[in-house]
């Protein structure tokens, strides 16, 4: 019941707000939203404490029939991969509520209801083990997101929303066809667990049907052009959720569906996908570098960062996949944090143009510290979270049997470019003379804003200094996915990995 509780607590909160919005004032609604999301987070912590890291099996499982005639069941469960995305979601949402405290001028109740419904849908996506249920949550996610951008967004919000929805729907349509085809191959059942281990037919086609849907969400080059528009037009919280959690739907889907279900598709398309991710890494970074708009810069940096994640996943080894999953969390923290920070100065100055700023460090020293830490996390500075993920991804890529080292070498230049665009941006916003009179009147962060940022910074440092608790819980699940994603016929492909395992074990012995 724990998972259901985590998933539907926010929905209950949304209903509560809807019912009580005339009775309670605006601030009462906000408090309800905050308390409910915090409660959800607290409940979700017991998923962490109760998690058994020694198995790859799905845990906290719930299964009861839903529409029996069609083989649809209400089937939930998490493993070492989804655990982190669930926690990331429950962690980010209360932060979003708090961040939106003063910034929503009209219809705060509607905003909070959308946000809470979105949380339920996102959590549902990460926990669903039934394809139909997954698809329901997947599509349900669109509606509140559509509202968040379409109602509380910027000037070109309608264009951005329609673009976002159409892009996603195009992918979803393909995935729906794929899901239906899987249904027939799975003895008329949508149960994901029975699908694992079946040797499916037409894997390449199915792989693509799912992969395109996910690639759009990631977004993988060249499906990324909805992202900058959506980010720029979305309200701060929309951007945070979008970058922090929604993009991970794509990479999560790849790990959960594409890799373990369609090993033949993985083998066939890895060269293409890895090429696209490497292009995304470099291209995203270079385009980010020349953006005059802070939000667009961060949006394009996401394209680059998510390219790293996909590269890691398709390295198809422990280092790469673990790094990729860890980097999903890292990106959620650092890019979510960046959007929060950008939102904070946007609320004060109502501009996102880099050129409008300069010298803010002098006026806003506390802001400067947070901004610096999050920027460095995004750059991948060792000691902070971003480095651990990037290092493992690149190491995995370098050691991978599935693609040439050249890809990883090119991808590694992304490390240089990240420093270029982030530090240049930071310099133009924070350093220099404080010569714009509008900037001279800026207030430093309020206690509420500090409270929004501190939890993020704590995790940024924690994962950087001591990533073991995070990595050790995903190890079993990752090795399960890796096993499933290897084409069954090829025993040969296993040998080098085995040899490597032996050397690492030896290494461990010697190190001890």
């Amino acid at each position: 019941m724990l998972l259901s509780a985590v998933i539907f607590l926010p929905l209950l909160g949304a209903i509560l707000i809807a019912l009580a919005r005339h009775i309670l004032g605006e601030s009462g609604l906000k408090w309800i939203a905050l308390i409910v999301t915090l409660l959800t987070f607290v409940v979700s912590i017991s998923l962490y404490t109760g998690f058994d890291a020694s198995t790859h099996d799905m845990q906290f499982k719930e299964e009861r029939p839903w529409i029996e005639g069609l083989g649809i069941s209400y089937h939930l469960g998490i493993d070492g991969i989804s655990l982190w995305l669930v926690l990331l979601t429950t962690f980010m949402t209360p932060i979003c509520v708090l961040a939106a405290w003063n910034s929503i001028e009209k219809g705060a109740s509607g905003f909070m209801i959308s946000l809470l419904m979105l949380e339920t849908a996102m959590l549902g996506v990460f926990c669903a083990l039934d394809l139909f249920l997954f698809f329901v949550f997947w599509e349900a996610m669109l509606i509140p997101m559509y509202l968040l951008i379409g109602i509380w967004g910027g000037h070109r919000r309608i264009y951005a929303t329609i673009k976002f929805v159409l892009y996603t729907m195009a992918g979803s349509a393909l995935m729906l066809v794929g899901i239906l085809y899987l249904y027939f191959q799975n003895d008329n059942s949508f149960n994901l667990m029975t699908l694992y281990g079946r040797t499916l037919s037409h894997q390449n086609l199915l792989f693509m049907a799912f992969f395109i849907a996910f690639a759009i969400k990631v977004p993988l080059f060249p499906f990324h052009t909805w992202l900058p528009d959506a980010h720029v037009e979305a309200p701060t919280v929309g951007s945070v959720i979008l970058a922090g959690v929604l993009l991970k739907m794509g990479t999560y889907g790849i790990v959960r569906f594409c890799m373990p279900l369609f090993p033949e598709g993985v083998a066939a398309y890895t060269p293409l996908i890895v090429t696209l991710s490497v292009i995304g890494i470099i291209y995203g970074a270079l385009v980010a570098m020349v953006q005059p708009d802070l939000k667009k810069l961060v949006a394009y940096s996401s394209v680059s960062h998510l390219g790293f994640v996909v590269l890691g996943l398709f390295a198809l080894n422990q280092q790469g996949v673990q790094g990729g999953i860890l980097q999903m969390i890292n990106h959620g923290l650092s890019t979510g944090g960046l959007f929060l920070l950008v939102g904070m100065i946007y609320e004060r100055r109502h501009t996102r143009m880099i050129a409008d700023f300069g010298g803010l460090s002098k006026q806003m020293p506390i802001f400067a510290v947070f901004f610096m830490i999050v920027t460095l996390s995004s750059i991948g500075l060792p000691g902070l979270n971003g480095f651990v993920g990037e290092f493992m991804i690149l190491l995995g890529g370098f050691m991978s049997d599935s693609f040439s080292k050249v890809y990883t070498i090119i991808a590694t230049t992304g490390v240089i470019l990240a420093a270029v665009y982030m530090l240049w941006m930071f310099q133009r916003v924070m350093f220099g003379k404080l010569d714009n009179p509008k900037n001279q009147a800026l207030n430093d962060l309020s206690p509420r804003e500090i409270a929004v940022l501190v939890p993020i910074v704590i995790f940024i440092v924690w994962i950087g200094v001591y990533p073991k608790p995070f990595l050790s819980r995903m190890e079993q699940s990752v090795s399960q996915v890796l096993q499933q994603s290897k084409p069954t016929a090829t025993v040969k492909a296993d040998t080098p990995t085995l040899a490597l395992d032996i050397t690492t074990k030896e290494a461990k012995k010697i190190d001890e």
Partner: protein
Amino acid sequence: MSKDLITILLIAPLIGFLINGLFGKWLKNISGGIASLAVLISFIISAFFVFPAVRGGDALKETLYEWIPIESFAIGFHVDALTTVMLLVITGVGFLIHIYSIGYMNHDPGRTRYFAYLNLFVFAMLILVLANNYLMMFIGWEGVGLCSYLLIGFWFERKSATDAGKKAFIVNRIGDFGFLLGMFTLFAAFGTLNFDTLFGRAESNTYEQVFGASTLIVATLLLFVGAVGKSAQIPLYVWLPDAMEGPTPVSALIHAATMVTAGVYMVARSSILFNLAHTGVVVAWVGVLTALFAATMALAANDIKRVLAYSTVSQLGYMFVGVGVGAYTSGIFHLMTHAFFKGLMFLTAGSVMHAMSDELDMRKMGGLRSKLPITYWTFLIGALAIAGFPFLSGFWSKDEILHNAWDSGYQVIFGIGLLTAFLTAFYMFRLIFVVFHGESRVDSEVESHLHESPPVMWIPLVLLAIPSLIIGVIVGWGGEHSAIHNFLGSVFTHHGESHHSNPIPFMIISSIVGIAGILVAWLIYRSKTPLSEPISPVHKLLANKYYIDEIYNAVFVQPIRGISYYLFWKIMDIGIIDGLVNLTAFVLRGIGGLIRRMQTGVVQAYVVSMVIGIIIFLGYYLFIR
């Protein structure tokens, strides 16, 4: 017990950083004291590690905790004689510079931030040298880079300062790109990044040949790319001269004594790999060419700190010659003496700036000897030491490097090194004569404020001048039987570092070259000022630093920016990809519009189309299939 000692040694500056970083607002006046105390604690503990008994034999190896479990990457320590030398330099010179900073930064409103960064730097540097594996070394490696970035851009309202900080970080990142790939190669080959295990496997030749027979060559050269970035060698030296934008004590600590020597340390730490791969020759050549190249730029510089910066680049080149020709001990020896005399010279330069209201242009100085006697004498000691004046510290270490280069068969490198030694003596004494001798060219306004620095600043100068004078004799006397060789011998036993030829002729040659440089400088600059220097094309080329910055800008920076903006963003992203997306939407809308017309609402039309459809289907099944 030793594990606890190292932990305290490492953590003390971190605690200093946290105290000043979090509560600095209330500690403005004692922030310098807190920071200095933190480093003093580290220094005292470091001193214990001089005794092998404390290390428990050759090296102390401790694992603190597991970092990335799958590959058993851990945070752990490796303290041997080499580490100890580094620890002493970092915390010893570091402590003096902290003390000096209390005086130097006395009036700066941001001094708690300054001391927080300085402590953070020491912490990162300690991680770098204490690490027992490459990955942890890399954590410290980038950590010091961050502090360097923050401290160069400390006065963040100055654009030149933040530009310089950014440049330092990015250029270092280019080096780190190599370091990262080097680590990947090593890991792919050896399955570990732990020094002991890795070097053991390298020696017993039990590793996977990732790049065939050249695996080690590739790995060491990639590592060396990292060293080239951090230690400012050709072609990545460009960040160091600009780094002088930072407060002068920072230049002394980070950009002379410690951080920039990390590359030398890394090569020395990897000596086994470099020996097996025979890539030392590349290291030595890059080093000697950098040494010469930087020295020539120092000839025409008029900014007192820039002269010192080029000189640092040049001396780092010597260190790479040392470690490149296999004379690791000599390279580290020079690293140590250089930390003293170059740290000293930067601090004296700071003392001059302090007296001259931050003036850096030596054409506006002159005759400062009488006004700033302590500064003058301590600077002179530093300059004599770097010039290789007999029996001062730099003489011993530089001579050893050149001697080893000759003995290892690198006669050309020896020759270039000797020429550089001459140039070094020359430009250093050019600086001395122009700044401290002759007639005063100081503005009368500034002249009225001229004053010697307070004791909190000049005592560190004296304390650095003493080792600059005598450390060479103490630890370098006796060639391969000297104290430093005995001490470091256990670390670098794996190669034949032996002096075949008689060292005396080499000592005499170095002495003559050094003194000659001083004499020539005296002949030219005892009366003349740099103002009257002829503007020859060569001089112009040197004064403009060979236009390297401009070339890099034109070849790399501008094209990449232009391509990104126009080709990638405007044409590719907005034009092509988004164009296709919008075109799809447009076409679909058009088709939708057409289909909409078919929904006429006239029932008869629907019936007709239905009938036609049925006929087609039936026809297909009955006749065609």
